[in-house]
């Protein structure tokens, strides 16, 4: 475990040193501030549109950070040839993958926490309410979802040659799942067999990232999500994360490093 944690710490420190997060955070702040400064029928208490824009930016930034941070991990180690001394220490390939995953996931979690803190401040400045538990639930679900994305991207970084192609494929896949997978079953039901069964099977096999999107509940001030549902969602995310990590290990363990 110490080995995994040591590897993860390096990844977190690397992300702290890089400018990606800072740029995205400043962009989110600037765009939210611009949206907040618009005069809408002389009413300064309108807040939900601002929450919506801020959360949209947070979700986009979260995906970008998770995917770009993860996609470059293994290719960078290969390119700089630091992967050889690392695996000769001895660090097993499984530990190496787990360390990289944990580092990316924790780094993404830190970014998500800061983003949601900013969101809470924006919301409180207009709404004069502080539903901390609702925000915690939304941030937790968001982080769990990013866990699946990180594991998926890690698998992609072993399969695809370049980090750019892997990043693009992962970003398009994640965005596609978020936007469309909720409706795939409805589309499937309107098709004839055997397409219906095929699409339905695809619908069940997909990791439903949209399940973790509680933005609308936060925006419209809904009640807390039941905690047993949060636990189930966490279990769902953990299952898919474990599946992608296992698949990554299966591919990585026999792959030549140079």
């Amino acid at each position, binding site marked *: 475990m110490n080995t995994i944690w040591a590897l993860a710490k390096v990844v977190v420190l690397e992300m702290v040193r890089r400018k990606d997060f800072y740029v995205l955070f400043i962009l989110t702040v600037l765009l939210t501030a611009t949206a907040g400064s618009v005069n809408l029928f*002389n009413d300064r208490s*309108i807040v939900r*549109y601002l929450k919506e824009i801020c959360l949209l930016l947070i979700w986009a930034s979260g995906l970008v950070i998770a995917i770009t941070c993860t996609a470059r991990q293994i290719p960078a180690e290969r390119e700089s040839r630091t992967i050889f001394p690392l695996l000769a220490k001895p660090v097993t390939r499984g530990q190496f993958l787990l360390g990289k995953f944990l580092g990316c996931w924790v780094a993404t979690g830190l970014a998500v926490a800061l983003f949601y803190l900013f969101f809470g401040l924006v919301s409180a400045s207009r709404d004069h309410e502080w539903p901390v538990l609702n925000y915690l639930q939304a941030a937790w679900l968001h982080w769990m979802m990013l866990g699946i994305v990180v594991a998926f991207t890690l698998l992609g970084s072993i399969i695809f040659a370049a980090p750019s192609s892997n990043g693009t494929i992962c970003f398009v896949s994640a965005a596609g799942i978020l936007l469309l997978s909720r409706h795939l079953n*409805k589309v499937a039901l309107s098709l004839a067999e055997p397409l219906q069964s095929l699409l339905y099977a695809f619908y069940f096999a997909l990791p439903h990232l949209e399940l973790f999107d509680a933005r609308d509940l936060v*925006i419209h001030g809904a009640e807390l999500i039941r905690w047993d549902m949060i636990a189930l969602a966490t279990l769902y995310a953990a299952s898919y994360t474990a599946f992608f990590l296992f698949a990554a290990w299966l591919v990585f363990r026999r792959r030549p490093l140079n």
Partner: protein
Amino acid sequence: MHTALPLALALAVALATGGRLLLWQQSRAHDTGSVFALLLGESRRAFASQVFLKADAYFHRGFYTSVFDLALPEGKTHLAKAAESHDHHNHTQQQHPNRDWIETFGRNFYPSEHRHIERLGEAREILPWLRLAAELDPHRVDTYTVAAYWLRERLNKVNEAEAFLREGLRANPDSYEILGELGRLYAENHRDVPRARAVFDLAIVKWLRQEASKPNPDELAYAQILGQLAALEESTGNLDRALAHFTRLKRVSPAPDTVQKRIDELKAKLGRPL
């Protein structure tokens, strides 16, 4: 054939088409001043519909049926219907039974109950989307009428409603719907009877000019304008004018019997035979 001929022909066609397009563009209302027009061009109108639907989703506290679910048969959003007639549609009608466990589970993480905004002042939350819809498509008339209704009726922002309607009228000078809503604002909020009457009269003229000759005219809008005008005349004691408007209203009203009762009452007041 000489190779220059097809080139010359293509150039002539291009110049002629370009000239026609330029004339067509100049003949259209000028709404190219906004940032959205500059960035998105004509495609912004497609986004305007989505933004208007967003306002409807806010009216339902985040709940809205997607394009993959059933659309409203009348082709109108609940928000617009509520603004038109205080719509109280069936709240169970749109609830679909869950198709599988993922859908059942997923309903815990997004607004899945059909509810309307309830708290006083909560209606203000739909306004940014209506404002944006108007920016994206200034020729979408219901954006102005719906926003004006919520500003006027629920938020008591009469001046803002008037300003927004006037902005809509500048972009759509022939809109009888906007004129009808503006007349209502003058009659109900400003109590400015002469101005309300003038605006309603203008709305009727515009309606007759645009809709009367159509095979399926927008009779509901006409009936609403006539009803408002007739009620205005009745309240100010101009019973003859009110009677004339109610008589016209009876021809297009979906409830002619109710209108006939009003006509009979007015005739009785005027001492005329029924």
